[in-house]
């Protein structure tokens, strides 16, 4: 096991290098310009944009730029945002807590919905409960988040006037009032994300429980005279959750990149909105930093998922 781990970690290094080359190439070749806003302003001479391009090293040959970036990254220098003229790590650190809070909570909500609903649906397949849950899951899944978000705003902010729909990182309140305000402004983005993700997860939980329910050992357990509750809790759910656990492990990295559309709608200053604005403004150092951290997390959690899977399911051997 530990030899397997070491080998996987050793493989991860060239893999990440390869990923970084591809990422860098894609971003460097992609069209777009950090200074496009200046273009329609007749007062800004074109040579300013050209000079900026030159000072930021955008006109240098690609391999040179890559090596420069890699060396800096290895020394802990994440680069410098074209747009904000701030170090990228500062930008990311500023956004991280909000991102983790909103997306993380949404994920917990999604799990809290998906686990019971998925299990119950699978235990009584094609019952009324299952039909309703399935339909709702597909409503959630087939409506884009830009649409459900707006729907919530229309109902809860505009019709009912209960909740604010603009997320503010600096609330002008302290103590209990802060908590209340924070809860009020987080409810809608968390709900939108949680429901969308919950819908997807429900389908997978249902699928994996369905697969376990009909296995022989479950029948054996029933035949032994165990109560249905005990059968479900001890034998069905525990085994069905093995794949679900690996699913969760694989989803963790996406918490880092945030939810682009939802963050945009509710103006949540998370990593997702940083990423999308950086992409649209061709702020390559920011995009590169976020995507590279994401890549590292993906590789890491893939490894964790594989280990978990092997540990939970003894039939798999890592030779």
């Amino acid at each position, binding site marked *: 096991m530990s030899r397997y781990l070491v080998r996987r970690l050793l493989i991860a290094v060239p*893999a990440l290098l390869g990923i970084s080359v591809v990422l860098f190439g894609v971003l460097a070749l992609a069209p777009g310009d950090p200074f496009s806003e200046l273009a329609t302003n007749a007062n800004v001479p074109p040579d300013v944009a050209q000079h900026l391009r030159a000072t930021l090293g955008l006109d240098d040959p690609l391999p040179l730029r890559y090596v420069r970036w890699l060396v800096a990254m290895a020394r802990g220098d994440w680069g410098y945002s074209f747009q904000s003229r701030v170090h990228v790590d500062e930008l990311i650190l500023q956004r991280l807590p909000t991102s983790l809070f909103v997306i993380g909570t949404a994920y917990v909500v999604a799990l809290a919905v998906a686990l019971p609903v998925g299990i119950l649906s699978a235990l009584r397949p094609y019952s009324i409960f299952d039909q309703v849950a399935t339909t709702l899951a597909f409503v959630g*899944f087939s409506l884009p*988040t830009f*649409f459900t978000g707006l729907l919530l705003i229309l109902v809860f902010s505009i019709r009912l006037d209960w909740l604010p729909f603009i997320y503010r990182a600096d609330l002008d309140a302290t103590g209990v009032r802060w908590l209340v305000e924070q809860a009020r402004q987080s409810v809608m983005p968390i709900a939108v994300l949680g429901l969308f*993700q919950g819908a997807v997860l429900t389908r997978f939980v249902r699928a994996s429980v369905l697969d376990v329910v009909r296995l022989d050992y479950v029948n054996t357990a029933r035949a032994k005279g165990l109560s249905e509750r005990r059968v479900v809790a001890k034998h069905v759910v525990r085994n069905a959750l093995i794949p679900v656990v690996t699913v969760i492990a694989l989803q963790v990295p996406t918490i880092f990149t945030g939810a682009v*559309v939802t963050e945009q709608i509710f103006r949540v200053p998370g990593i997702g909105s940083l990423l*999308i604005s950086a*992409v649209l403004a061709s702020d390559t150092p920011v995009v590169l930093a976020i995507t590279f951290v994401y890549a590292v997390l993906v*590789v890491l959690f893939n490894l964790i998922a594989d280990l978990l899977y092997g540990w939970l399911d003894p*039939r798999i051997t890592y030779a």
Partner: protein
Amino acid sequence: MRDGGAVLPVVADVVADPSTAARAGSLAHEAWFRFRRHRLAFLGFVVATTMAAVVIAGPLVYRTPMDALDFKAKLQAPSRAHPFGTDDLGQDLLARLLYGGRISLAVGVSAMLIALTVGVIMGAAAGYAGGVVDHVLMRVTDLFLSLPQLPLLLLVIYLFRDYARALLGPEAGIFVLIVTVIGGLRWMPVARIVRAQFLTLREQDFVHAARALGAAPGRQIVRHILPNALGPVVVAASLDVAAAILAESTLSFLGLGFPPDIPTWGRILFDAKDSLDHAPHWALFPGTAIFLTVLSINYVGDGLRDALDPRRVIGR
């Protein structure tokens, strides 16, 4: 967590030895028999085929032009002249939905097929071969999983648009590009599901038995393992159709999708969002169309899954 075009999580189901797998020849026949008895699945199949038929034949019957502007009739609720109402330029929504449906459905299905084909091949190869092949293929999967989708889309469309346009014409060219891009970025979950299935299945007795009887690896994969691995793959595929239809709407939004005068369902829904409180019909129809498509395809998927699992007790 990515919204709008979620990267589906990977699920590895634990499937026991289906004793009937050896009789693979009658599998298709039996599956169809089981599928037909699955009422919801059959209903879904009927709805999905009807939708497809309507968007294909509809514009031939319903002759109102989809791009005629009429400012006197803008944002009208459904009426005789405009059965689904009009949008803010006074264009007939039914005509637009019919036209856009062809594209949305085609995008959804084609992208799903691409994702499925690539995913199954990669996953099966990695899961069956194991060892170095598995490692290399899984690192490739990691690479694709960690690619930033938005800049990549920009890059691909920017690099190949003129080429595809010259080769296939403006609409077909962009269609092929979009489908390739969406499908090409969605195969990874399928690959991981298939691989996980293979990891468990290849160690099972019936596969050992097939191997011992001298079945070639190709035969082992296609005849013995793959049919048993299909369940979760089918679920992922049905979700992929929906995700592709929605992903196309995000592309339209970013200006990377079809030209602005082509009304795909996702695009109509996006255009309608700011008038949601005032003209709900505008969003209602494309929203319902997407929902019905996704739901029916899902039930078809469920039905297929049950039908393909020979031990499954048929639903009541």
